[in-house]
């Protein structure tokens, strides 16, 4: 049952994309920054995990917490060092985007200088397989599912039930505000970057453990997430998650008929088709309508 196996694999990679995509979407909705450096945040989390496991010899659960905290801190740091000064200058969205590209390039290069471009592995050998009927699962499938099942409801509760969560949602509705529900927006930005980066941290912990760490590992994942946000519809977090699952499935199911090297074409073909026929995405509203 190749197709069923591919379907399961697609769900697993969809779950990982969903974490980064929802993280990206929280940041994009609140700040309207095309946060390309999200990829660097992702990679930073991976290297943090590597350092914690291989150099500091911390037990795995502690190492993961270190990785999550590092990713969150790194995201906030980029906001503080790059975006905040640009916002203070009232820079255009294009300037913020270029700043973000700069941050991504800088970080990737620095990672390469420190850790070399070789893949650093956290473990050796193949993961044990659990066969259920005709499909086989690895521990990664199970953890990916578990994270999604635990993290997204918590995120939902946070965004709907807490003061800060509601402020984040209000900001997404009107990103021009400077004070939301009594919270200073600059503070809120820090929180937004922390949460968005934390979600990327979950994804990278799994991927780093499974496949190792490379300086440019964050970029493709970040980009698929970005596409997922568009496909799902900007401005609606479950849409980003749905888009991520859709792309994960599409990538893996396409392996049924096409070789793996066509995956980029499949993902971005999907993006172009969506932009052509349904620019608002699966659920969203088009943000940029013509200003009369």
């Amino acid at each position: 049952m190749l197709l069923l196996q591919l379907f399961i694999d697609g769900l697993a990679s969809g779950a990982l994309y969903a974490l980064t995509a929802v993280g990206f979407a929280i940041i994009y909705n609140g700040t309207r920054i095309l946060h390309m450096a999200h990829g660097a945040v992702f990679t930073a989390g991976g290297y943090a995990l590597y350092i914690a496991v291989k150099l500091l010899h911390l037990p795995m659960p502690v190492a993961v917490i270190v990785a999550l905290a590092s990713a969150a801190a790194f995201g906030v740091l980029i906001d503080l060092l790059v975006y905040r000064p640009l916002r203070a200058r009232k820079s255009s969205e294009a300037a913020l985007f270029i700043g973000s590209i700069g941050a991504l390039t800088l970080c990737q290069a620095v990672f390469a200088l420190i850790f070399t471009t070789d893949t650093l592995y956290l473990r050796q050998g193949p993961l044990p397989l659990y066969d259920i009927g005709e499909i086989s699962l690895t521990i990664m499938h199970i953890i990916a599912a578990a994270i999604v099942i635990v993290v997204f409801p918590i995120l939902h509760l946070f965004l709907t039930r807490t003061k800060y969560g509601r402020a984040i949602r209000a900001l997404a509705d009107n990103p021009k505000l400077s004070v939301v529900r009594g919270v200073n927006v600059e503070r809120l930005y820090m929180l937004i970057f922390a949460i968005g980066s934390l979600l990327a941290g979950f994804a990278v912990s799994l991927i780093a453990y499974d496949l190792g760490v490379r300086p440019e590992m964050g970029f493709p994942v970040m980009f698929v997430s970005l596409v997922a946000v568009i496909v799902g519809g900007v401005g609606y977090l479950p849409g980003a998650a749905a888009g991520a699952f859709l792309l994960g499935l599409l990538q893996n199911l396409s392996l049924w008929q096409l070789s793996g090297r066509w995956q980029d074409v499949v993902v971005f073909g999907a993006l172009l088709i969506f932009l052509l026929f349904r620019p608002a995405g699966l659920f969203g509203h088009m943000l940029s309508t013509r200003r009369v």
Partner: protein
Amino acid sequence: MEYLQHLLIMVMIYACLTVSLDLNIGHAGILSFGHASFYGIGAYTTAILTVYAGLDWFTAMVLAFAMGAFIAVLIGLPTLRLGGDYFILALFGFSLIVTSLIINMEWLTNGPFGIRGVPRPSIGSYQVQSGYGMLGFIAIMTAFIFFVHWRFASSPMKAALHAIRDDESVAMSLGINVVRTKIIVFALGGGFAALCGAMGAFYFRFVSADGYGLQTIILLWAMLFVGGNCSLLGAFVGPAVLMLFPELFRFIGGQGWDIGHIQEALYGLLLILLMMFRPQGLVGNKVGLRA
């Protein structure tokens, strides 16, 4: 001496790419995040037409321009109406697809191995040789491309483009066909980038799939913003600074460090600092990117 020639040629090719990117980004506000792909399309069109189809260099070069412009129209028609962020993404998606197609369509592109043996240009019986001949050829092409862009920037076309860049609705209200103008200018950008690809193919006599991806896109954007928008001089200064800068490292040494990564780190840092302290670039006009 040979190395200096090589540097000069590279600066000129990148200057031409930058000035064509500036036509899109600086003058028309079209944030083309796929410019490197048109460069690649031009290089491959030239290589395929000369090596496989046996066309002469000039015809191949003209067709490369046409191909770049044609594909720009094809991709621009559905995407140029999208908002800024969507457009950036769509173009980047396009550029990933182009790279992927170049690698995967082996029957046409020879896949990852690239195409060798692109002929040198010749005029009558004179065959342009390496060294000064090639330097002269690239210089003439550069002069031509800069002349054309200078004419654009000193004509009523500039006013129409800037109007679109600054306020599309007002531009429409003043009778400017915004959609058509944007497609035309995007096609020109694609065409001239493809022409640069042809120049590169003639110079290297070899094309391969790497060199048209994200790194090149970022390099081109960095060159444009280092030099500054809407400035012919800036289109030269940006590439010159970014091409010659790394050469300094060869002298002050950086043993054990990978020059390429130091270079990249500096590009990244430079982009951030530029946006913070000098968004108009080193010699650019204040107009252009509203930063």
